[in-house]
């Protein structure tokens, strides 16, 4: 039965496809390619603006950069075409735009830093070529993940392995001696000699989300068991609390050992949302928020660096010359940008400490203003939203939880970063996904996006027609049949 499907309709039902010619849903790869070209064009234009505003000589070189950028993402696009043809058409272009704007901004900061270094008769190593190299490696990883993970459900089998490795990675820098792992007061890195440093926590996040998704799928019943009623709130049984409590302790342990507020907040928030998605019980969220408040209170009184961060949040100008300098400069930067911004390359975002990593969004806010910043936040929102939509549409529970967790992770991370630089919440050291300078963060986020694309491919892929059931006669009615034994 061929179902007459109205124009533009994507999927026929599984039943319809079983008994007639199927209407293939549009893969929408063409949309993806044109949006990628649009993003690459925007990035090239941004580069042109930066070069002209910084009085660099404009040559055809810029166009080649733009084409090379398009070629990079073109390769990723063809990998998607090959291995995930039904994947979401918006995720990759959004990533391309964010990464490209990040690259342009890092290049723009390079120019400023190089000028300053030249004035002080120092040398400065440009960061943009390194970031471009990381982008390339990230895209290679992206393609590798798409090619290797053909079905996201296979990952559920390695849940505990992922969890163990993830925890190890998260804890590793904390237990290593400070000479290897401490950079700028936080112990998050592992120095690998000449190879540079890696930040294992970034990869640990993804592994832990895989673990939590696999764990929740296998232990769902345990979580939904009705427990005691307390003040009209249905609390789960104490022993079911185990995993959540463990996660809480680990998050706080990381916070204590590595002086990292951001990762613990990110991890805890994502875990809470995944538990909520799995159980549909608001009791867990209330419980989790209560735990968070207690944890924050204890951390504030226990650790001096938490007090510093909170102090900066309440009044960054109280210690303008010392602790509050960074956030105060960020606020000045945003204020200078105003509604329309100073124009790319025309501001002074290089005055903010760590502007290339944690505070890159301030630089965007200064040079593109509120209007450009809104675009940035919208593109991040779209990225997160498309991931959530795919996880709603995907058919298996593990995919739902994993996709939901990964998408929420991006959203929460952007909230923490943008909230931090604009003094909405206390500043915590997190990178803006795809924009900030930093190899680990970039690579990890490309793996994350590859997994999201894999899930969205599974969500939109038409179900293969179910095999027609062979009508088997009930055993009692079956007659004995003589079967010739093959010679």
């Amino acid at each position, binding site marked *: 039965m061929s179902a007459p499907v109205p124009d533009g309709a994507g999927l026929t039902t599984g039943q319809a496809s079983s008994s007639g010619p199927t209407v293939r849903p549009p893969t929408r790869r063409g949309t993806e390619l044109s949006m990628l070209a649009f993003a690459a064009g925007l990035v090239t234009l941004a580069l042109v603006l930066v070069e002209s505003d910084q009085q660099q000589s404009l040559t055809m070189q810029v166009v080649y950069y733009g084409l090379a950028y398009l070629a990079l993402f073109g390769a990723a696009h063809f990998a998607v075409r090959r291995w995930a043809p039904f994947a979401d058409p918006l995720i990759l272009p959004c990533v391309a735009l964010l990464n490209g704007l990040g690259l342009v901004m890092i290049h723009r900061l390079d120019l400023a830093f190089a000028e300053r270094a030249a004035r002080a008769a120092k040398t400065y190593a440009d960061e943009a070529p390194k970031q471009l190299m990381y982008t390339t490696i990230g895209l290679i990883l992206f393609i590798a993940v798409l090619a290797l993970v053909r079905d996201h459900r296979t990952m559920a089998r390695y849940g505990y392995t992922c969890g163990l490795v993830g925890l190890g990675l998260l804890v590793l820098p904390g237990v290593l001696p400070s000479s290897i792992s401490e950079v700028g007061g936080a112990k998050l890195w592992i120095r690998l000699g000449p190879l540079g440093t890696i930040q294992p926590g970034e990869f640990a996040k993804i592994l832990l989300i895989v673990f939590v998704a696999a764990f929740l799928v296998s232990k769902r019943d345990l979580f939904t068991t009705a427990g005691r009623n307390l003040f009209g709130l249905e609390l789960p049984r104490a022993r079911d609390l185990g995993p959540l409590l463990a996660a809480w302790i680990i998050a706080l342990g990381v916070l204590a050992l590595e002086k990292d507020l951001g990762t613990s907040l990110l991890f805890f928030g994502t875990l809470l949302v995944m538990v909520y998605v799995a159980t549909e019980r608001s009791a867990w969220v209330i419980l989790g928020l209560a735990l968070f408040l207690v944890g924050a209170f204890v951390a504030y009184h226990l650790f001096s660096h938490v007090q510093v961060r909170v102090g900066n949040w309440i009044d960054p100008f109280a210690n303008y010359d010392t602790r509050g300098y960074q956030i105060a400069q960020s606020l000045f930067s945003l204020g200078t940008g105003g509604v329309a911004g100073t*124009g790319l390359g025309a501001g002074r975002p290089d005055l903010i400490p760590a502007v290339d990593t944690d505070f890159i969004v301030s630089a965007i806010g200064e040079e593109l203003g509120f209007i450009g910043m809104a675009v940035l936040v919208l593109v991040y929102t779209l990225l997160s939203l498309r991931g959530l939509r795919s996880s709603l549409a995907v058919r298996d529970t593990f995919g739902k939880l994993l996709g939901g967790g990964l998408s929420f992770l991006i959203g929460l991370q952007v909230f923490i970063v943008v909230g931090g630089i604009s003094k909405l919440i206390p500043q915590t050291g997190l990178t803006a996904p795809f924009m900030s300078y930093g190899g680990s963060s970039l690579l990890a986020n490309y793996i994350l996006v590859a997994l999201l694309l894999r899930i969205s491919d599974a969500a939109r892929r038409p179900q293969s027609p179910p095999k027609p059931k062979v009508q088997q006669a009930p055993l009692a009615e079956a007659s004995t049949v003589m079967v010739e034994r093959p010679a």
Partner: protein
Amino acid sequence: MQLTRAGFLALLWLFVLAALRVVRSDLYAASGVRVAVPGFRRGSLKGSRGKTAKQLVVTHGALAGTRISLDGRPILLGRADDSTLVLDDDYASTRHARLSLRGTDWYLEDLGSTNGTYLDRAKVTAPTRVPLGVPIRIGKTVIELRS
């Protein structure tokens, strides 16, 4: 200088709008979510024994014997000249009823007619699924869907 600045911001917004257009087209296209509710489809398919209506046949009334082949577009029934099936029937209203395809099933809805539309013996008040071979009565005219 100011022009390029504003132009770049405008282009950035254009990107967002283009992305939102893609999102919108996804909303109208059958989404993956719809696939997730197979129970309803299965039931309706069993009812029509896996066959879709291919034509509409007038069995009684002035137009008896008229056949209209169905191509997925909605069928408008009534006395109005622009109806798909123009009823020459004193008991029919100008715009009497409409048959429209949803998924694989045809649905009949009354468009506020004076004398009502009946599916077999039951008066149609809300959009109702029309199985094959069940008479639709409009005034003196009787219509059936055939495969």
